[in-house]
């Protein structure tokens, strides 16, 4: 990819709003954000301090928004932002940040550091300083429709498989259904049991739903690489499909960043509110269960814990539904020391798992999760994000740990009142 410094600076400049200005004005360089970031705690490398990853953006802000900054540039006391800075910071901005948002929770002056890194990536993407892995994923998402290259044919094959296993028929392109379900490529390729579970639950709860052949992919590489244009295009496909089918709700799958993309960023990307609502699958399941439409029976006794996907919980606000649901299906649910909005990231969010270059670092910082799990001593880890799940599984394998990872929706499906009573997590 070619580099365009001027374009990058212009893009970065356009990202500086009141929030960013207030945040940079407030930072006193206390260093506490480092203590919240798994890339720092697991490597002790000070360059992984969250606010340090924002140096290019801070310098641009200083040059353009502060008296001293303008003054120092004029006098030649400080060097203006250069192409080399983009090159030097690329690794810090993409490989060592999962946009997990933990630093934003601990900053004493209240800076939302993650918000700024998301914005900084817009500048880096425009300047062409992005990891090849993410470039390719974005390219595939724009051309093929999925970052992993999943086509409609692949989905149809997976759905046929699901139909055979469950004996249910999956409604495609049904006009006027209440809910339109989205999936992430990861689920289609690696975890088709998620689709199976959703089908079974919806059948049991008599939910009117459908899948669009035009837009079934929920993930959005655009928000990971930091390209508004790509993100808008990808969100736009879903919006068009949902509005043409006339559905009331679009269901965001377990995948974390997909939820952030479609729920929180989407309307701002396309510049208008949707004509439908976005609901996360966990919110929907919890709602169905509370309304009594989803009947669950039996409790899994295996001690288990929940890994909060950052984008769903901390950055998404779906905090209680997974805990409600776990309480209904498991008797041995225990929380890790840092959980909910203060959970530790798996290490692969924010596009890091799609960035092959970052694999070594990602496996290294997985130590944080390992320590959490070892402190708790629980062998079953429930999560609600396909990306977290694959990253966790890789980390567990890499560290030779004896821990099983399962999806929450599947766990719920196993406890459907109508389903065979013999279900247990261990048998999966």
């Amino acid at each position, binding site marked *: 990819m070619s580099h365009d410094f001027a374009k990058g600076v212009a893009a970065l400049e356009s990202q500086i709003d009141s929030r960013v200005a*207030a945040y940079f004005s407030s930072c006193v360089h*206390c*260093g506490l954000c480092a*203590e919240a970031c798994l890339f720092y705690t697991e490597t002790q490398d*000070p360059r992984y301090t969250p606010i*340090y990853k924002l140096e290019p953006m801070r310098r641009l802000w200083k040059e353009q928004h502060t008296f001293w900054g303008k003054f120092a540039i004029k006098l030649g006391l400080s060097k203006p932002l250069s192409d080399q800075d983009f090159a030097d910071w690329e690794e810090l901005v993409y490989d060592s940040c999962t946009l997990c948002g933990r630093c934003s929770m601990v900053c004493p*002056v209240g800076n939302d550091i993650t918000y700024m890194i998301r914005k900084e990536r817009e500048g880096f993407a425009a300047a062409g300083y992005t990891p090849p892995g993410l470039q390719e994923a974005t390219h595939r998402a724009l051309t093929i429709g999925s970052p992993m290259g999943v086509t409609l044919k692949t989905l149809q094959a997976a759905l046929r498989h699901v139909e055979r296993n469950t004996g249910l028929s999956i409604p495609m392109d049904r006009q006027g259904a209440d809910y339109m379900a989205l999936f992430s490529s990861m689920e289609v390729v690696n975890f088709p049991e998620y689709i199976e579970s959703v089908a079974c639950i919806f059948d049991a709860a008599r939910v009117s739903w459908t899948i669009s052949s035009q837009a079934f992919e929920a993930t959005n590489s655009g928000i990971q690489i930091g390209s508004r244009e790509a993100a808008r295009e990808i969100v736009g496909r879903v919006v068009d499909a949902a509005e043409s089918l006339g559905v009331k709700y679009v269901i965001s799958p377990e995948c974390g960043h997909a939820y952030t993309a479609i729920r929180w*960023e989407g309307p701002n990307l396309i510049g208008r509110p949707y004509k439908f*609502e976005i609901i996360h699958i966990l919110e929907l399941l919890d709602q169905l269960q509370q309304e009594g439409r989803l009947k669950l029976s039996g409790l899994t006794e295996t001690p288990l814990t929940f890994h909060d996907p950052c984008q769903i919980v901390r950055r998404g606000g779906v905090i209680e539904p997974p805990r409600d649901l776990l309480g209904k299906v498991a008797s041995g649910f225990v929380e890790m020391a840092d959980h909910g909005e203060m959970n530790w990231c798996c290490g692969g969010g924010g596009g890091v798992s799609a960035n092959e270059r970052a694999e070594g670092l990602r496996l290294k910082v997985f130590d944080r999760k390992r320590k959490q799990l070892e402190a708790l001593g629980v062998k079953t880890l429930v999560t609600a994000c396909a990306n977290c799940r694959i990253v966790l599984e890789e980390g567990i394998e890499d560290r030779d740990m004896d821990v099983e990872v399962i999806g929450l929706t599947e766990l719920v499906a196993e406890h459907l009142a109508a389903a065979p009573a013999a279900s247990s997590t261990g048998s999966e």
Partner: protein
Amino acid sequence: MIGQLIDGPLWYFSLAVFGVGMLYRLYSILRAGVKPDLAPPRAGGGAGALRNLFSRFVPRRDVATRGRLTLIAGYLFHLGLFALLFFAQPHVDFLAERITGFGWPALPYWAFIISAELAFVGLLLLWLHRLLHPVTRLLSSVDDHIGTGLVFLVMLSGCLALAQAFEPLRLLHLFLAELLLIYFPFSSLMHTFTFVFSRGYTGAMMGRKGVNA
């Protein structure tokens, strides 16, 4: 002669630089603008902003353990400085005479001294931490050290003038305080005011998402 300058014109000049500079900084933050959030919120942003404004005074458990030196020293310094800046008898008298026109109850002398000592302990530890910890070493710029240094010198000169018997010592304290006021709007000392914006913005955004930030 110099004394008159420090006590009169320079005081008003530094006060003006401080006031105008601070307002300009706040204006330049607001001028950058915030786009309205079109995503339907779970809860109101206002409540989230207000909650975050206060909840950030309490550190998160995990970071409170890992960064306890920063937190303890930070609290000692900020609370001590606040108490002695606004509630030491000489300061109350000075502010009443020069700015507000009315006074308010001041701390007893011993409490003033204790708050000064706590502030010194906090500031020294924070400064040393800044110089020694790899993270803060990497982050700290000249500005951070000038800001810390000026605050330290103002506090030190104030403590040297405690006897309130020597005019030159009072003038030295006042002069350094004036330098601090002039430097203030150009530096990260601005966090004194902008932290309200930061916490508010973040709190509002997280509040809309239904997260207690």
